[in-house]
């Protein structure tokens, strides 16, 4: 009974709270990093060095007026932010945050569920988030959100193909679809898959930027052309849900990258005897560290690169990334057959 219900529930509560707190501070981190890149201070007023800024932001969003446009489709307008956020949150179910910990004499796995189709589960769940974006833009009954949501969904659907194809080559290397299995495969082969599949990693990161609508692919919310993107008409907490979903998706992309390419919870060079002392650091710290490094990459890119044009975005997606990902699969398969494994 305890193993079946209580522990998973506690895990879920723990992961959800953790994610929400990380999202709050990710926003602050983004503002700070962008400020430092531009030789500014960033938020400084609320708390020392602006450390309480996220709390103030959340309070502001809670008390803001919640406006529904008169001509909006009320039900869909309300449902859209929820449809965006829920898939982003439930994708965390299969992500292994660490190997396992012992608490009160019980061994608890740090993945909520180790499904044998874990990676596909993430792809499937992530593909549902597009609905919220399309419906949010459509139900606002306003032209800028509609245009932005069409852009966003075309972008998501296109880059989903490239990202899913990189997963195929990782699956070929690992021989399993389970997230825990993929990390174990990296342990057995002795190196992170970053070094086995460098091309796949690059394609995945570019696709990840596009899937999360991050700069340089933030066309769906290009302020200078579309006011505010598909959520122009949203205010208050409903806007906050869209915002939350975007940052949650960033964390998902980073944790999947950590699991697939950076050995998940494993320390660097997991098989090397000389580095065995690294195992004294708890597994979840390694995972968090790597995930934040990738998140930093996201923020760094945003502060550095200008926005793509829409035709450039589509050309890169369909004519460069997808053929490259397909070629990578073929090469991986051939090498695997030649090595006889």
């Amino acid at each position, binding site marked *: 009974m305890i193993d079946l219900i209580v522990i998973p529930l506690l895990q879920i509560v723990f992961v959800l709270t953790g994610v929400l707190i990380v999202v709050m501070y990710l926003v602050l981190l983004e503002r700070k990093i962008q400020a430092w890149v531009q030789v500014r201070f960033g938020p400084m007023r609320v708390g020392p060095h602006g450390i309480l800024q996220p709390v103030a932001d959340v309070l502001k969003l809670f008390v803001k007026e919640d406006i529904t446009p008169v001509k909006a489709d009320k039900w869909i307008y309300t449902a859209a932010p929820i449809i965006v956020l829920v898939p982003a949150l439930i994708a965390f179910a299969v992500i292994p945050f660490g190997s396992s910990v012992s608490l009160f004499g019980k061994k608890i796995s740090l993945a909520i569920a180790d499904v044998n*189709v874990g990676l*596909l589960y993430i792809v*499937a769940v992530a*593909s549902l988030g597009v609905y919220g974006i399309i419906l949010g833009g459509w139900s606002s009954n306003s032209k800028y959100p509609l245009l932005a949501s069409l852009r966003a969904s075309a972008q998501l*659907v296109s880059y989903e193909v490239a990202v899913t194809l990189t997963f195929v080559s990782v699956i070929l290397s690992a021989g399993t679809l389970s997230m825990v299995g993929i990390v174990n495969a990296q342990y057995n082969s002795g190196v992170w898959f970053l070094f086995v599949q460098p091309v796949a990693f690059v394609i995945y990161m570019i696709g990840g930027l596009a899937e999360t609508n991050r700069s340089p692919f933030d066309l769906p919310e290009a302020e200078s052309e579309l006011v505010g993107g598909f959520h122009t008409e949203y205010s208050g907490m409903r806007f906050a849900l869209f915002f939350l979903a975007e940052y949650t998706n960033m964390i998902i992309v980073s944790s999947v990258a950590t699991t697939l390419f950076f050995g998940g919870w494993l320390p660097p060079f997991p098989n090397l005897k000389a580095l065995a002392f690294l195992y004294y650091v708890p597994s979840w710290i390694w995972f968090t560290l790597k995930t934040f490094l990738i998140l930093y990459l996201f923020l760094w890119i945003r502060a550095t690169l200008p926005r793509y044009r829409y035709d450039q975005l589509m050309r890169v997606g369909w004519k460069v990334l997808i053929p490259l990902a397909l070629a990578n699969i073929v090469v991986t398969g051939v090498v695997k057959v030649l090595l006889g494994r």
Partner: protein
Amino acid sequence: MGEQLAFYALSALILGCAVIVITAPSAVYAILFLVLDFLFVAGLYVVLHAQFVAVIQVLVYAGGIVILYLFVVMLVNLKRPPEAQRDRRRRSRLGVALSAVVLVEFAAIALYGYVAPEAGPAGGGLSFSNVERVGWLLYTDYLVPFELASMLLLVAMIGAIVLARREL
């Protein structure tokens, strides 16, 4: 017991959503309930221990095909049904024909269920994972239909590109 309960609950939800899909006043609502319907069908697959099929169901149908439906419905404003569909007699004749086909199909499936021997777990023992078993079956017993289907999809893809290109 629990499995049966889940099965009947999910089946009721699937049928309920399907009824709403065909009675919904607006096409966008109909499509949303179609997505919900597909998600419940995926749930049914999970109850039947076919996780791979469930995930593919969500990925291909809920996450792929229906999004294209939504695009079409949003861009083509469907306020009024076209003339051809408003002809009552034509609609009812089509309905009767379709329901007859479905009825025959149901009867055939039920008959087959009585006649055919109980199918064992495919692929032998339980040592295979779900995905491996599906892959194994696709590339052994069902190789020809599988390759034919992929050829058909390829032809459809090329056809779509040819149709979409203005100058050729």
